[in-house]
């Protein structure tokens, strides 16, 4: 099975406190630790496991700048066979549809049986996979938390739906899936693994390589535009307990007892 996994380099939300900068034009990016989007990492692990079971190859692709190459190498160290970087100044400011348009052009340069994305990334839009599928006229399933290969024509997938239930469907190949976290346990990637793939060449494709019209992608093609970042005021918020540890604990225990929280 030839598998393409779309990945994204994002601020690692478990490592960072996200703060909005002074003029609200961006978040403070200076000290951010970046990593591969968590959902995408599960998708790559799943792709590797499928390849190891039925044969084929795993390609990882990303839309980004030169620094995005590091996440491709990380996923190759994990076991992906090759990486492709889609990078061009003209891609700057793309909305979800723009990113899907760029990925579509990359998909059409190869021949894939299965295309995967993470269910969502740092912007929480959860839209690129579904858009890509419709642009390619391929069937789609989102929030996938189980994949079973039936044969080279179809697979069985589980979608995570409300209440922790799982919706099972059969879907024809080729198809596009967006992957939910928890589908597997992504393997650990050590520094040695990353060194091994440090010199593997990663091709970079720009707008003209992909045959993209200038107004289809980037800020020029974006109908959805982020104006700013801000911290919302949401009601009163919590009463924050302050003082010495001793005082905080006493107050907290008192409150918990009063509300029936200590039996």
């Amino acid at each position: 099975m030839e598998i393409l996994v779309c990945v994204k380099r994002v601020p690692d939300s478990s490592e960072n406190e996200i703060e909005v900068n002074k003029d609200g034009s961006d978040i403070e990016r200076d000290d951010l630790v970046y990593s591969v989007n968590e959902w995408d990492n599960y998708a790559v692990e799943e792709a590797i496991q499928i390849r190891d079971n039925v044969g084929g190859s795993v390609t990882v692709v990303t839309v980004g700048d030169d620094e995005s190459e590091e996440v491709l190498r990380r996923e190759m160290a994990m076991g992906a066979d090759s990486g492709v970087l889609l990078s061009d100044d003209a891609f700057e400011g793309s909305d979800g549809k723009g990113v899907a348009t760029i990925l579509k052009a990359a998909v059409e340069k190869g021949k894939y049986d299965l295309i995967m994305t993470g269910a969502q990334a740092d912007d929480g839009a959860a839209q690129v996979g579904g858009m890509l599928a419709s642009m390619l006229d391929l069937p789609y399933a989102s929030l996938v938390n189980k994949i079973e290969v039936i044969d080279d024509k179809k697979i069985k997938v589980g979608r995570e739906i409300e209440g922790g239930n799982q919706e099972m469907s059969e879907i024809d190949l080729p198809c596009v899936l967006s992957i939910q976290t928890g589908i597997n346990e992504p393997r650990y990637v050590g520094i040695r693994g990353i060194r091994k793939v440090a010199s593997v060449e990663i091709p970079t494709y720009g707008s003209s390589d992909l045959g993209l019209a200038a107004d289809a992608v980037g800020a020029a093609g974006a109908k959805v535009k982020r104006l700013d970042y801000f911290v919302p005021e949401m009601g009163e918020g919590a009463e924050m307990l302050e003082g010495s540890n001793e005082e905080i604990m006493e107050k907290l225990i008192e409150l918990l007892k009063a509300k029936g929280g200590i039996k």
Partner: protein
Amino acid sequence: MAQIFAYIVHKEGTPDDTAVELREAAKKIDSNADVTAIVFGSGVDAVCNQLTESYKEVWKIDNAGLAYPNAEVIRRALVSILPPDCIFLAPHDTFGMDLCPGLSIKLDSPQISDVVDIEGSEGNTLKVVRQEFSGMASTHVNCDISNGAVINIRPGSFQGEGVKGAGGQVVDKTGDAGDISESSRRYLEVVVAEVGDVDITKSEILVSVGRGIEDQDNLEIIHELAEAMGGDVSCSRPIVDAKWLEKSRQVGTSGQTVKPKVYLALGISGSFQHMGGIKGSPFIAAVNKNPKAPIFQLADVGVVADILEFVPELTEKIGESK
């Protein structure tokens, strides 16, 4: 102004809460708009009749093949029945996430997902509010709606009365929906989540743990605190993803819906998917080392501390206080 449609999720003959929320959201786009509800399903007359109270028109697509909603089939039907350049609203739930991104491509309209507020429209520009980075930052977003738009609304974000006394009529659009037989994606069954050893939906006191626990071995301190408080241990999604606790202990829209008296959130950031699983307004206390964690906006009382240090000490103090 473009025509506005709302996709109605329903269960057991009753529209979901989002039916009112979408109507409320439509008001914020255009306060004068007559909004059309769209209902797909099998035997949906009861659902449609309830909707005529708040929607001027209710489009019904009723077919035995639609007994279980398959987004691939419903997307195709929507493309057949929706007029060009319309505004289509749907909840940002597991069905809406499946349906809408592709629908926007087929309608050649932009999509904005997980919208938490709508500021209004001016000409062909609609201004909305979204969140990024798991709710740690909000953004204003402008959308060019000259070719319509597909908008996913976060469940629970548009509270209000909706509209009353709309005196709407039901219109059967089944004949216009085209071929609704399943094709490239075929629904098989729903596998119901397993019930674990502890039923957290019945717990009065929940000691809930999130990513801040850092390591599986540290879970011991959470179990000890729960025991001292006489409560049960629940958790947020990352703990289940890491397989440190069973799925049946996960609180959230993709896990269990709980109704405790007291909810102690330890090292949980407080994403909307997690908070969506807490009902019945419990007393929420939160401990998190990140003072900016969204949980502090939603909790009743908060402590900025590292749970790995705070929790063992709290357990000890509770023991002494008894």
